[in-house]
């Protein structure tokens, strides 16, 4: 009451205040504070990153905004670096194989649990522990499992006769990337499965009954009902997989550190390494810029596929 009397003399203030408590101002305030925060701590760094990739940055000019502008030199040097194309190739292999593995296993598990026996939803939920664990812990566990001489995976593979001598997963240039892919598939399978389960649950069951009456076998039902009905879910899951896989950093830090000799290095780890191991922030920013553009394209695909789903 007192505040109202106080504000009587200031009609403008009063209107503003009442708008904030009771009108459009309320919504604008609620939405603008977080958006300003996001713009300050995500948007600005993003632009700053692009700016840095066109500048010459050294330890002395690190704190300044205005630095010598060198055009595309950073990009030119980067493309000419001998490790550039191998690392890009690794990134692509890592992304494609991780997603393929996570998606296939996730879909198989989702189909299995979709049969809906008692306890299925509880057991299915348990799988998600791989996803809530800190990435570094997952990396540490797999680092130990994949150990060359004493790793349990090598023991299981040799004793079942699949390999004749131990594979040095982390230190052999032919296997180091696959060590991380393996851990990443394990990490992401459960998340894929949960999202695909939601899509499966949304398919009307009478569609299956009708086609069963028409004499369709299980494979035909899968390809004519399940896959088409799941199209937008699959689109969303795969683009989310792309986004998460390109964010994966902890596993590289915990298992191979990108080595040996960059054989398991990928762009998102390399960018960090350039900045924080070699203190070449301009190159780090350049790799980051290239990758952020890639991720943005994936994000547009994701948004489009979720939009699609809402309309249905």
């Amino acid at each position, binding site marked *: 009451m007192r505040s109202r009397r106080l504000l009587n003399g200031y009609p403008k203030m009063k209107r503003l205040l009442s708008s904030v408590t009771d009108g459009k101002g309320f919504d604008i305030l609620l939405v603008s504070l977080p958006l300003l925060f996001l713009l300050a701590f995500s948007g600005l760094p993003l632009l700053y990153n692009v700016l840095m990739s066109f500048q010459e940055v050294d330890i002395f000019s690190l704190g300044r905004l205005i630095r010598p502008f060198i055009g595309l030199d950073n990009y030119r040097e980067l493309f000419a670096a001998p490790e550039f194309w191998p690392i890009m190739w690794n990134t692509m292999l890592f992304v494609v194989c991780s997603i393929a593995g996570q998606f296939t296993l996730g879909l198989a598990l989702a189909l299995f649990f979709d049969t809906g026996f008692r306890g299925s939803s509880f057991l299915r939920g348990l799988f998600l522990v791989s996803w809530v664990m800190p990435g570094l812990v997952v990396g*540490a566990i797999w680092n130990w499992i994949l150990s060359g001489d004493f790793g349990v995976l090598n023991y299981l593979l040799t004793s079942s006769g699949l390999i004749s001598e131990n594979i040095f997963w982390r230190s052999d240039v032919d296997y180091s990337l696959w060590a991380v892919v393996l851990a990443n598939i394990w990490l992401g399978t459960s998340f894929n499965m949960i999202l695909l389960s939601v899509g499966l649950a949304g398919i009307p069951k009478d569609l299956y009954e009708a086609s069963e009456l028409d004499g369709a076998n299980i494979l035909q039902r899968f390809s004519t009902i399940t896959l088409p009905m799941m199209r937008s879910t699959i689109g969303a899951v795969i683009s989310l997989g792309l986004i998460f896989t390109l964010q994966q950093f902890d596993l590289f830090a915990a298992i191979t550190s990108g080595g040996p000799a960059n054989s398991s290095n990928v762009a998102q780890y390399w960018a960090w390494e350039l900045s924080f191991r070699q203190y070449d922030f301009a190159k780090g920013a350049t790799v980051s810029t290239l990758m952020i553009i890639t991720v943005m394209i994936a994000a547009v695909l994701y948004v489009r596929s979720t939009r699609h789903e809402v309309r249905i």
Partner: protein
Amino acid sequence: MSATRHTRLLLFAAILLGAIYLFPLYWMYATALKSGSEIFAYPPTFIPRGLDFGIFAEVWATRDMGRFIWNSLVIATGSMALVALLGTGCAYVLARYRNVWIDIALFLVLMLQVLPASLMITPIFVGFSALGLLDFPRFAVMLAFTAKAMPFFVILVRATFMSIPAELEEAALVDGNSRIGAFALIALPLARNGILVSAILIFMQAFGEFVYSKSMIQDVTLQPASVGLNGFMGPNTVEWNKIMAYATIYVTPILAAFVLLQQRIVSGLTSGALK
């Protein structure tokens, strides 16, 4: 008869699949309980010979884990509070309206969700060091992590608000409530569970955060448990039972919370990520 046998068979298969999938987790616990020589036994022992629980107290003391875990808790609590404080209102407004501006804001939020931390750390580090924020490294990590995690929170909580009928708030407005009143007294209590579950997910993520802490916190006394674990795993380490004991102490609380809240977390997650 055959129907129950069928479901029993399925349940058995499901438990078997679960056991295979969760084997790495079991291996962490099993290794932690082995002695320093038993971990190098060949063939490996799948059930530890003698259970040595003293290793946890030993690792806790020698690796200064109390300090590391405390720093993780500080970072996770601060990030969660900041995310919930800023994100809830944003999610509410984005759920209640449908127009071009909301679409643009939503698109922006979705886009900022996907930026990988390991790529954003370069400009954030350079910018923060210029602003002097790196003198308060844990706070700097909170700010950076909040910006990274808030979009995810907004999308999950927005789905919760969308499931609450707007008519309830309209009725409150007719009864003479202000907009703030309708939001605080009607919408917030109804969305409480969704907000809580999403906040817990953010807490779990922040508790395991690594990239920002590793890059921005140089002072070892301020580093969180993830950085501590990374420091423990040198390239030629042989103390795998101790590393796994460290990992056990670090993740068991998270796993316990997850198993307790499992159903809610799963349903919260699925409603948000696909809608």
